[in-house]
């Protein structure tokens, strides 16, 4: 039973990270109908930024909490700048082109960013500083769920609640929903759609960067390639939950994380991907729009 709980929490941790990244995929898809394949790279850049900041601040002997906050902020801002720029450079000029063009542009952007980081930084694995200390009150259950896991799960849940509130209640959130439902009408009602799209990319990127920071301090190492795998997994999570749906992305992330964790624990870590993607195939066969997705109706 203890083993089960352990796997459960490790699954939730993975799932949290997948969900954080998947949110970016699903929000961008909801607004402009594009799969932003460069999103995984944003996550990787977030992790690298956090690495640089955390290392530098570590040398100067800042307290751990300050390092976490500053590294998180820096990663979020820097990644957002990347997300914003990618949209302006790679997607906006071809927004009215056939659907395939932005997709190819996205894949190109992803390859470009990977190689850019490879050249500018290194191809080696870098040791990421351990940011999250072990809390003492966690000790009795530390063999089941570590402090880092707990921090990741809790902060993810908080971030998601804030995001949901933002989208439901705020003026910008309403404009985002309106744009997602009917872009032309949104323009006619006086919404600056370009601005809404930029905000979507910025929020998505900031979430991915936070995911990058959290997982990097959990695993303890990063390299330029982590964005690709995490991006594919998060994309899977988004599709699983129904792409375009925000609760769907969260649900998909957790389901995927738990599946992988249990597959690793009860079968073999070699098979975690087999189980994860089999699940995806099954869901797509029985509910092609994803768990919480709506079947797309072609607008006339």
């Amino acid at each position, binding site marked *: 039973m203890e083993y089960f709980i352990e796997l459960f929490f490790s699954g939730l941790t993975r799932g949290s990270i997948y969900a954080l990244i998947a949110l970016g995929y699903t929000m961008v898809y909801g607004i402009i109908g594009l799969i932003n394949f460069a999103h995984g790279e944003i996550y990787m850049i977030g992790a690298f930024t956090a690495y640089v900041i955390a290392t530098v601040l570590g040398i100067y002997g800042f307290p751990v909490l300050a390092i976490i906050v500053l590294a998180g902020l820096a990663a979020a801002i820097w990644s957002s700048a990347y997300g914003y720029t990618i949209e302006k450079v790679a997607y906006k000029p071809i927004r009215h082109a056939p659907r395939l063009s932005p997709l190819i542009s996205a894949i190109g952007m992803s390859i470009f960013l990977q190689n850019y980081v490879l050249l500018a930084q290194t191809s080696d694995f870098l040791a990421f500083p351990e940011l999250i200390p072990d809390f003492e009150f966690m000790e009795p259950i530390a063999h089941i769920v570590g402090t880092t896991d707990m921090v990741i799960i809790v902060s993810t849940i908080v971030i998601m609640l804030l995001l949901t509130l933002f989208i439901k209640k705020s003026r910008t959130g309403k404009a985002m929903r309106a744009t997602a439902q009917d872009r*032309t009408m949104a*323009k006619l009602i006086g*919404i600056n759609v370009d601005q809404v799209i930029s905000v979507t990319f910025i929020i998505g990127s900031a979430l991915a960067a936070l995911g990058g920071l959290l997982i990097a301090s959990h695993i303890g190492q990063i390299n330029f390639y982590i964005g690709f795998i995490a991006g594919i997994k998060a994309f899977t999570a988004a599709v699983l939950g129904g792409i375009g749906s925000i609760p769907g992305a969260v649900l998909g992330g957790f389901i995927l994380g738990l599946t992988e964790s249990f597959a690793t624990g009860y079968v073999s870590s070699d098979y975690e991907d087999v189980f994860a993607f089999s699940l995806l195939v099954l869901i797509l066969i029985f509910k092609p729009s994803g768990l919480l997705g709506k079947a797309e109706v072609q607008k006339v």
Partner: protein
Amino acid sequence: MSLILDVKKLSMRFGGIHALTDVDLQISSGEIVALIGPNGAGKTTFFNCVTGIYKPTSGDVLLNTPKTKNIRLNGLKPNQVTIKGMARTFQNIRLFQSMSVLENVMIGRHCRTKSFIFGAAFRTKFTREEEQQTIEKSYAILQKIGLEVSANELASNLSYGEQRRLEIARALATEPALLLLDEPAAGMNPQETQDLEALILRLQQEGQAILLIEHDMKLVMNLSHRIYVLDYGTLIATGTPQEIRNNPTVIKAYLGEGADA
């Protein structure tokens, strides 16, 4: 009475097709003007040119509001046109179906409010007050339009006639100097059309200038002060309802050549 909309020699071509040729149209404050014409005459194209969905090939669209004089609208994006003071509805219903009725009106207030992402994050006093104002104003508009009882319903749950009225409410929320209605009575039953007629008249009495595209001739004749008639993209007649009713060119355009036989 001052001029609100002044359209001068507006032309729109799609390749070789002349959708609109040298259309002139004026609307004064407090006036209801109708734009009529057979199917495919270019009425909706005219709306699309004026509201910034299409960029007209040539000609001028000038808007006068209490705040600004003679702004050229052609070449502006739709959201900028709306900010300048023009709002429209569509032939087919284009509500934000999965939002509540109140939210649909609130989204219309978007361009008249300012708070942004940081305000939302920190819940500043300004943001909170602005949100409160948005809700109050939106609710007041719903009352005016008679939909306040369904404020928290989903827009898709309203009846057809109510959805059309909600579209007007949403357009009103942007505080337009001029309201463009594209076939507001399309698909309505007689009762709903009557309600609509009363609503449009009430808005006009409150000083709202309205440009109307409509096929329901009874509605057009009852409401409009002046009528413009389009056929094949050119204006063939303008005048009061009485003049238009008896204009032989208009009758020919609607009924064809053999009608006078």
